[in-house]
Structure formats: structure tokens, C-alpha cells
């Protein structure tokens, strides 16, 4: 199974998002690099709005993630509740 990843800027806005990703994707590996955080996962990574809102303590629109997004791989599927990255193999 191939690896998907998402990379976010390392800042106060992304800290709760990264925590939420870790909660929802226990298999994910978090790499902390200068000024950025890269999260790898085998085959699939799911980002859930509800989990981010719990960590953040306010409403969150998943599209806000664009502000601090650096890069990602895999097929993207996004609706109001989740953003999923995956490979078909």
C-alpha cells in the first residue's frame, strides 16, 4: 500500500488540526521539520471537521485548511465533514 501525506505549516492555527489528525489516524506518522509538519499514512488519511472543532473549541470550516496547507498527495475527496486522501492500489 502506498503512502499518502499532508504537509502543514507549523504554527498556532495548525496545532489543533495536527492533533485532530493524530486522533483520527492512529497509524499516521508525524514528522516535525523546520517550519513545517509532514504527516504520512499508509494508503489513507482522514481529516474530520468534528474532531478539529473539539480540539479548537470553535466552529471550523474544512476549507480553512487551505490557508496553512503546504502540500499533499493522493486522491482528494472533500465534503462538509471530511477531507480524505487515498491511493487506489
Amino acid at each position, binding site marked *: 500500500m502506498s*503512502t499518502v501525506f499532508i504537509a502543514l505549516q507549523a504554527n498556532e492555527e495548525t496545532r489543533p488540526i495536527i492533533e485532530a489528525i493524530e486522533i483520527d489516524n492512529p497509524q499516521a506518522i508525524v514528522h516535525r521539520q*523546520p517550519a513545517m509538519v509532514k504527516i504520512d499514512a499508509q494508503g489513507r488519511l482522514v481529516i474530520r471537521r468534528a474532531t478539529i472543532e473539539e480540539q479548537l473549541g470553535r466552529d471550523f470550516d474544512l476549507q*480553512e485548511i487551505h490557508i496553512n*496547507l*503546504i*502540500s499533499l498527495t*493522493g486522491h482528494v475527496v472533500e465534503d462538509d465533514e471530511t477531507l480524505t486522501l487515498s*491511493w487506489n492500489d
Partner: protein
Amino acid sequence: MDMKVAKKKLGLKDKYKLMTRDLGWEPSYHSKDELYPYMNYEGIKIHDWDKWEDPFRLTMDAYWKYQAEKERKFYAIIDAHAQNNGHLNLTDARYLSALKIFLQAISPGEYAAHRGFARVGREFPGVGPQVACQMQAIDEIRHAQTQIHAMSNYNRYYNGFHAFADQRDRIWYTSVARSFFDDSMSAGPFEFMIAIGFSFEYVLTNLLFVPFMSGAAYNGDMATVTFGFSAQSDEARHMTLGLEVIKFILEQDPDNLPIVQNWIDKWFWRGFRVLGLVSTMMDYMLPKRVMSWREAWDIYGVENGGALFKDLARYGIKPPKGWDDAEKAIDHMSHQFMLGLYQWSFGTSFHSWIPSDADMDWLAGKYPDTFDKHYRPRWKHIKKLAAAGTPFKNYGLARLCQTCQLPSVFTEPDDPTLTCHRETVYKGEKYQFCSDGCQHIFENEPEKYIQAWLPMPQLFQDPIKGDLGEWMKWVSLLDGKDNGDYAGSEDQKNFEAWRGLATTNQ
């Protein structure tokens, strides 16, 4: 009393439908072929444009909102950089060479991409791609502007930044990036999308932006980190668009597969060559290095590219034809480029240098199979020449590749001791190439590449006729300031003097 009723918020899917497809219309007094005249000549068959969907479902209203937020963040840091002597907080002023190359070669590429996407956004009949291309066109011009603006802070203090626009058109190494974008923009709209949207954005830009911007952070360059990550946040959307494009085209008609495969082969190799200089920026030009070019390639080339082509295999897509040759070049290319840049540094609007012993040890550790065997002996000899007061300058101009326009610094894929020579004859004229990949690209479309404006042969034609001094004026290169070895340069002296002033009360 009026009761305020909270309006029900539209879901993402409904909003996307309303703000893209529902904005389109069927033409009544012109035919579709008249409105979109460039849809058929490349041979790509599209049956249903409504099958195109942006996976992020980003609509224009949200786009403006988030882009404005990115700009606010960007300018907050640019202001802080200018107010806090940001130009002195670098690890070392050698680092600026990487930025000068970026400004002269890559920022104009962002502007070219802006023009390309503005054009294809007009030429595609589907509303989905029209909106996505329009956003990307605005993104790309934002990247060009923010990069130029961020680096203008360095132009106030250091050499080599002042004439990037002239140099984009005239100096030799920038023609590599310029010809890459001109090639894509003079192709049809579908080829442009595979060239820039897929091959460049999806397969290759991570190699440019991610490790390089992290490197900027390591080297105290907040201005570049900021424009880099601000641009990269758009790239994630561009990459997703690039992947969507290729799936869409392949799913529309089985006849599209061989055409698309041919473009992937071509544009992977073109992109690999154009990004080659990034290897040198990472391995040699960052005083404090995040990772080697080899390590970046393993993550963003081998692992991600491998996953991508494994996934696309279900459509019949194979990895690009030049993939194996690229892998064989990874442990050599940064050294081959730096040796070239050093010996031709009289003609570059940035500085190069002989790596220190500590740097050479680092390179030997990162390239255990190649550096000590092939490259250290050459650097040691060059160091000896400099110590003897006869620094190595190669006034023999370089043979440029007719396709990628790079000097032919590359060796045979299986023999790193021998320069790669390839040539072909077309309509009685001889043409030279740096590699099999570049020769194949030429032979597929010779009428296009015989028009290449190659800066080295050009130097001997009008208006310069072989006069190096005239050439320097013509490319706005200030001899003794912008060019040459970093050791002894004005940039070096100024950086050391100003840093001394900034940290003492003298």
C-alpha cells in the same frame, strides 16, 4: 417584532454546483466549435465536460476569502522582515545565490504559468475547468508578485537582484526555464495541462518548494519561507487539479491514452532538467542544509512518484520513459552543475565558490558512492589552482542542448566518467543534445525545437558578435559586482561589515 431566521447554509456540493456549472450556458448564436476552436487538433476526445469536478469544491467566494487571509499573513511577515534587519539574519550571504537563481529563473516562470492558465481557462468549454484554471491563473500572478516583492528587500543591500527582468530574457541559464514555459504555452490546451498541471505541479514542484523552503527557514530567511509556503498552499490545489485533469482525460476516451503517455514522457524529462539546478541549490548553496537532493528525491520522487504511477497503472499509464535515467543521475547532477557554475561564474548574476573541506565531508557522507570517487579530486585541483593565484575560469563557452538549453554537463547514464554526446541531423542541419530524453523530444517535434534561442550560439550572432564585455552590458551584468567567486565579493564584505555593526556599538 421581526424575528431573525438563520438562513440555512449551503452544503459544499450544492454550493459548488451553483457557483460553477450553474453559471454556464449553452451558446445560441455561435456554435461551440466557433467559441472553443482549439479543442480538437491535439486529438484528445472529450464527451462530457460535466464529469469534471474539483475535489476541493472551491468556489470563487471562498477563494477570495482564503487568498486574502494568505496575503495578510504574508505581508505581516514581510513588514517584520524589513523592520528587523531581516537581510542580516541569514546564516551566511552565500545563501543569497540560491535566491538570485530563484528570482531570475523561477519567478518569471510563475508569471508565464499565469499567462498559460489564463489562456486555457478561456479555451476549455467546461465550466469546472474554466473556474479552476481562472483561480490558478490568479494564484500564479500572485506568486510572481509576492516573490519579487519579498526579494526586493534583499535588492536594497546585495548585488545580483537588480536586473532579473532583463536577465530572464537574455542571460544564458534563465533560458532553460523560459524555454520550458514557452514550450508549454505554445502547445495546445490539453498538452499545457499535462505539462504544467500534471507533470510539473504534481510530479515535480514538491521537490522545489518543500525542501527548499524548509531550507530557507533553516538559514534564517523568513521572507522566502513566507512567500514559499504561501505559494505552496496554492500548489496543493494545483496538484490536485493536475491529478484530476489526467484522470478526467483518461476516463473520457480510451484513444486519449497514447497521446497522454507521450506528453508525460516528454514533460517529465523537460521538468526534470529544468528543476535540475535545485539539486545544486540544496546540496551546495544552503549554508545550513535540511536534507540532500538525494534524500529529497527519495521522498518526493521515488516514494510519491512511485505511488502516483502505481495508482495510474489502472488506466494503462506507465512511469515516464526517462524515469530510470533520472534515478541514475541523482547522485551526480548537483556536483556536475556546481562545477559548471563555478568555472563559468564570470557570466552568472550570482556567486559560486569552492566548497570548504567541511562541506566536502558532508557531501561525501550524503553521496558515498560518487562524491569522493568522482568530484572531490576535481574540487581539490580547483582549490590548488586558486591557491596558486590562477583561479580556474573556463572561458570556453558551453555546448548547450538544443532541447533543454542546459550546458551539456551530464554524463552517460552508465558511465559517470564520460560526457553524454547525442546528435541528430534534420533537414541538413546538425543538432546536439545532452541526453536520450532531450533527443527524443526533439525528434518528435523537430520543427518546434529548431527555433530554439540558444544563448551561447546567440552570443556570436547579432547584436553581440562575440564581444564578452558587450554581452555583459546587454544582460545587465555588473562585472566584479554581480558575478564571480563569493570569496572576496562585495556581498561577502558587506554582509560581514553590516553584521558586525548590527551586533556591536561601533
